[in-house]
């Protein structure tokens, strides 16, 4: 166990930030595993009290359009690749990671920009807004959400903040390496550079935690229908009425 920040000396011997302490990678990994395992155990213990699972049969409603599903999976893939390539050298794997990393990063940046534009002008932006009343939702079983549950909104916005942080710091770091588009100048002062590495590292750690949590819930039996909807686009009417307030979300029928 160590500190959160690693320091180094600049050319004059002045101490500057080097980046995040990668010991935290293990801290995050263990913490996430413990929390998720705990969640799984509690859920298993409560399993018999749980109400019956809604049927996936019957009429289907459209939850995610093809383009959005595509966006989700491209984003997911690029994030996983970024995490894998970014942590490989930390874990001691000798692979040529940097080119894959920045290409995946560029891809992520493009799809995120796409998603932002699309969500602002073509999607129902309101459906994702996290308002004060949403916070009551988990504690009141009578309250059902619109298109997105409180947890989904929370995850979405957490991911938004973290991914944007990763992207902004990543792009700034991208400028510090040679690419086919430019020769680096190495002109960023060492202390600022270190700060960028620190923020990139911290947001990466957060992203790893979020990604792990997200995947965990996506694989939970009671949430699996959401995952299915991210693959095929639809959920059943039963699933919709069991989990959502149709006055707040009235999707069209799936093809």
């Amino acid at each position, binding site marked *: 166990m160590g500190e959160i920040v690693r320091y180094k*000396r600049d050319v004059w011997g*002045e*101490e500057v930030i080097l980046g995040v302490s990668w010991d935290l990678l293990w801290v995050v990994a263990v913490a996430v595993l413990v929390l998720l395992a705990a969640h799984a155990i509690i859920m298993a213990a409560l399993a018999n009290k749980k109400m019956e699972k809604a049927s996936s049969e019957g009429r289907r409603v459209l939850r995610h359009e093809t383009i959005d599903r595509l966006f989700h999976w491209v984003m997911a893939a690029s994030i996983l690749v970024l995490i894998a390539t970014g942590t490989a050298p930390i874990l001691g794997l000798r692979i040529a990671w940097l080119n894959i990393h920045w290409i995946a990063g560029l891809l992520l940046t493009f799809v995120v920009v796409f998603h932002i534009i699309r969500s602002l002008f073509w999607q129902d932006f309101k459906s994702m807004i996290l308002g004060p009343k949403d916070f009551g939702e988990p504690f009141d079983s009578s309250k059902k959400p619109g298109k997105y549950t409180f947890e989904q909104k929370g995850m979405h916005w957490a991911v938004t903040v973290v991914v944007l942080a990763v992207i902004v710091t990543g792009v700034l770091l991208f400028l510090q390496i040679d690419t086919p588009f430019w020769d680096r100048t190495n002109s960023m*002062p060492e202390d600022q550079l270190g700060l960028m590495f620190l923020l990139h590292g911290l947001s990466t750690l957060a992203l790893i935690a979020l990604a792990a949590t997200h995947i965990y819930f996506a694989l939970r039996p009671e949430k699996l229908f959401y995952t299915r909807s991210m693959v095929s686009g639809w959920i059943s009417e039963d699933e919709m009425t069991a989990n959502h307030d149709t006055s707040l979300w009235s999707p069209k029928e799936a093809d």
Partner: protein
Amino acid sequence: MNPKLTRRRFIKGVIASGAVATSTTIWYAANGQARPAGAVERMIRININGQMRSVDVAPQETLASTLRYKLGLTGTKLGCNRGECGACTVLVDDIPSYACSVLTHSVKNKRVESVEGLEAANGDLHPVQQAFVDELSPQCGYCTPGQVMSAVGLLRSNPNPNREEARQGMAGNICRCGSYDSYLNGVMRAAQIG
């Protein structure tokens, strides 16, 4: 940017590295492991200029330090302490080596010869030394002991070098005064005498 800088924190790292042997011991103790056996003993006997000398040598000590500071053999000069000049050249089992870049412990079972060991018992100069006097090879003289040792080593392995071979053999010695030509004259003369 903060114009004031403090060296405090990284200095701690340096101290840690300076006292690294101690900290490792503690590390091994803390981890419940036995420290690897086989670390060198400090008291050693070493054959210097034909004499067995007992001397207390730190594990990391260079031969140049031992010769100069423990044995008082200051003929071996430290020009750079980095193997970049040759002023500290001595012979180890007849082979010219930079005493600044050889650990004393590495040569404890070998014969070490420094410039002080060349003269005959009656005080006669070694043929290389005499030739260097005759040719007035040295200028400032600081590189001279190293040049002498390289020449002696060269002539032991090749008693009759041509000038080019001598030049190649002496190449690991810098003479800032630029007396190379005069040293080569000396080597060639010594080869004739020798």
